[in-house]
C-alpha cells in the first residue's frame, strides 16, 4: 500500500491511471477509512487530493459555483454566498455526520461513494448540479445523477476523478431544500431523503421544479412525475398532495436494518412535501 499526495490534478490523474492495481482517491476519508478498517477495500494506492489547491476552493463561476472536490462540509457551511444561493445543497451537505465528520467530508466524496442514501446527492440532483471529471483522456462535465450507477458503483473510468461540483446560476424566485428521515436527530444514515428545487414566476406560479429522492432505490433517483405535480401550480395543498403521491409511487426500496419498504414509500411522500414547502418559502412564495 502506497500513499501519495500530489499537488496538481494532472499528477493525481496520472497516479490513478497508473498500473498500481487498485487505487483510491482520499478526499475527506470518512468513507474510505471505514471501508479499509472493516476490510471492505484494500487499495494498493491512496491518492490524497487535499493538497491540490484548485480542489480546495469554492469559486464563483458564470453566476454559479464551482466547488472543489476536497472542500469540506464545514467550509461549505461557512460560505455565505453559497448558503444564500443554494441553502438546500448546503443543508444537505451539512447533515452528513457529526461536527467531526463535517470537518472532513466532501460533496464529491459523498457523490463518488455512490451510496443510495448519500445526503447531499438528492439535493445536488434537484439543484441540477454537474460534476467536472478529469481523466487520462481529458475533461468532461456530466450531470451528477450519472455518476452513481448502483450501491458503491460509479460510471467513472480508471484514472478518472471528480475534480469539482458545479452548481448552476440561480433564476430569481428560486428555492431549494433537503430533508432526510433518520430515527435519531444526528449521526444516522438517511432512511429516506428528499431534495426539492423550484422556481416561481412573479405571480407565484411554479415554472420549474426538480425533485430527487435518496435511499428508496439502488441509487438516488430524479422523480420528474413529482416535479410535474408542482409545475404550473402555486404549490398549493392539492399540488403538494400530488407531489407526495408521485414521490411515493417512484420508490422501489428494500427492507433493511434501517427501515421497511412500506415505511420508506410512505415517508418519501411526506418528506418530499415538507421539503417542497420549505423550498417554496425560500423562493419567496407562500403556501
Amino acid at each position, binding site marked *: 500500500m502506497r500513499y501519495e499526495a500530489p499537488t496538481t490534478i494532472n499528477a493525481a490523474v496520472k497516479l490513478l491511471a497508473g498500473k498500481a492495481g487498485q487505487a483510491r482517491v482520499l478526499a475527506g476519508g*470518512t468513507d474510505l477509512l471505514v471501508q479499509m478498517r472493516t476490510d471492505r477495500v484494500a487499495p494498493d494506492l491512496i491518492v490524497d487530493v487535499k493538497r491540490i489547491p484548485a480542489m480546495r476552493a469554492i469559486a464563483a463561476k458564470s453566476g454559479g459555483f464551482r466547488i472543489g472536490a476536497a472542500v469540506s462540509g464545514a467550509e461549505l457551511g461557512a460560505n455565505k454566498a453559497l448558503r444564500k444561493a443554494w441553502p438546500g445543497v448546503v443543508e444537505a451537505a451539512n447533515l452528513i455526520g457529526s461536527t467531526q465528520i463535517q*470537518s472532513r467530508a466532501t460533496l464529491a466524496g459523498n457523490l463518488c461513494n455512490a451510496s443510495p442514501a448519500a445526503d447531499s446527492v438528492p439535493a445536488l440532483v434537484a439543484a441540477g448540479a454537474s460534476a467536472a471529471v478529469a481523466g487520462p483522456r481529458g475533461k468532461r462535465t456530466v450531470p451528477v445523477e450519472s455518476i452513481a450507477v448502483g450501491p458503491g458503483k460509479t460510471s467513472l473510468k480508471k484514472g478518472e476523478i471528480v475534480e469539482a461540483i458545479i452548481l448552476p446560476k440561480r433564476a430569481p424566485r428560486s428555492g431549494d431544500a433537503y430533508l432526510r428521515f433518520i430515527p435519531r436527530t444526528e449521526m444516522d444514515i438517511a432512511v429516506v431523503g428528499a431534495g426539492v428545487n423550484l422556481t416561481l414566476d412573479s405571480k407565484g406560479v411554479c415554472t420549474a421544479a426538480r425533485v430527487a429522492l435518496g435511499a428508496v432505490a439502488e441509487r438516488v433517483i430524479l422523480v420528474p412525475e413529482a416535479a410535474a405535480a408542482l409545475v404550473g401550480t402555486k404549490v398549493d395543498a392539492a399540488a403538494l398532495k400530488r407531489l407526495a403521491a408521485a414521490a411515493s409511487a417512484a420508490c422501489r426500496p428494500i427492507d433493511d436494518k434501517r427501515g421497511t419498504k412500506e415505511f420508506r414509500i410512505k415517508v418519501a411522500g411526506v418528506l418530499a412535501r415538507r421539503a417542497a414547502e420549505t423550498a417554496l418559502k425560500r423562493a419567496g412564495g407562500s403556501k
Partner: protein
Amino acid sequence: MSTVRVSTTINGDAVAYLCEVDETLLDVLRDRLGLTGSKEGCSTGDCGACSVMLDGRVVCSCLVLGAEAEGRDIRTVEGLAAGDKLHPLQEKFLEFAALQCGVCTPGFLVAAKALLDRNPDPSETEIRFALAGNLCRCTGYDKIVRAVQSAAAELRKG
C-alpha cells in the same frame, strides 16, 4: 506496505514519526507517540472519543491517516491545559460532575473547545448538536451540556 515519514506539529511541538500507510492518526498518537488521551471507541467515526483538532477543526483521528498529518497542526486533549493550569472546560467538567467513567471525556473536551472557539455563546440546542458526534453512555449528557454552558460563560468573562 510502504512506510511514510511524517513531520508535523502536535500540541505546539515539532514531532516526526514513521508510520505505515494504513495507520490512522489515532494509531500513531496512541501507539507510536504514547499520547493515549485520545481514545478508540469505534474506529468508524461514530463515537468521537478520538477527537483532535487538525488545522483548527475538530476531526475524528480514527478517520485521518497518520500520513496525512505532514505539515499540519494537531492538538489533542493532552495540550488543552496550559502548564499546570486547567482549561475552563476541564475545570467545569470536574465541577459539574460531567464525567462518570471518563473515557469519552477527552473527545468531549476537544469537541467542546472547537465549538466555543467558533461560537462563544452557544444555545443549549447548539451545544447538543455540536456534540452529537461524541457518544457518552454514562451521564445522559445533562451534566456535560451544563458544564459547557458554564465554561462558555466563564470564557466570555475573559
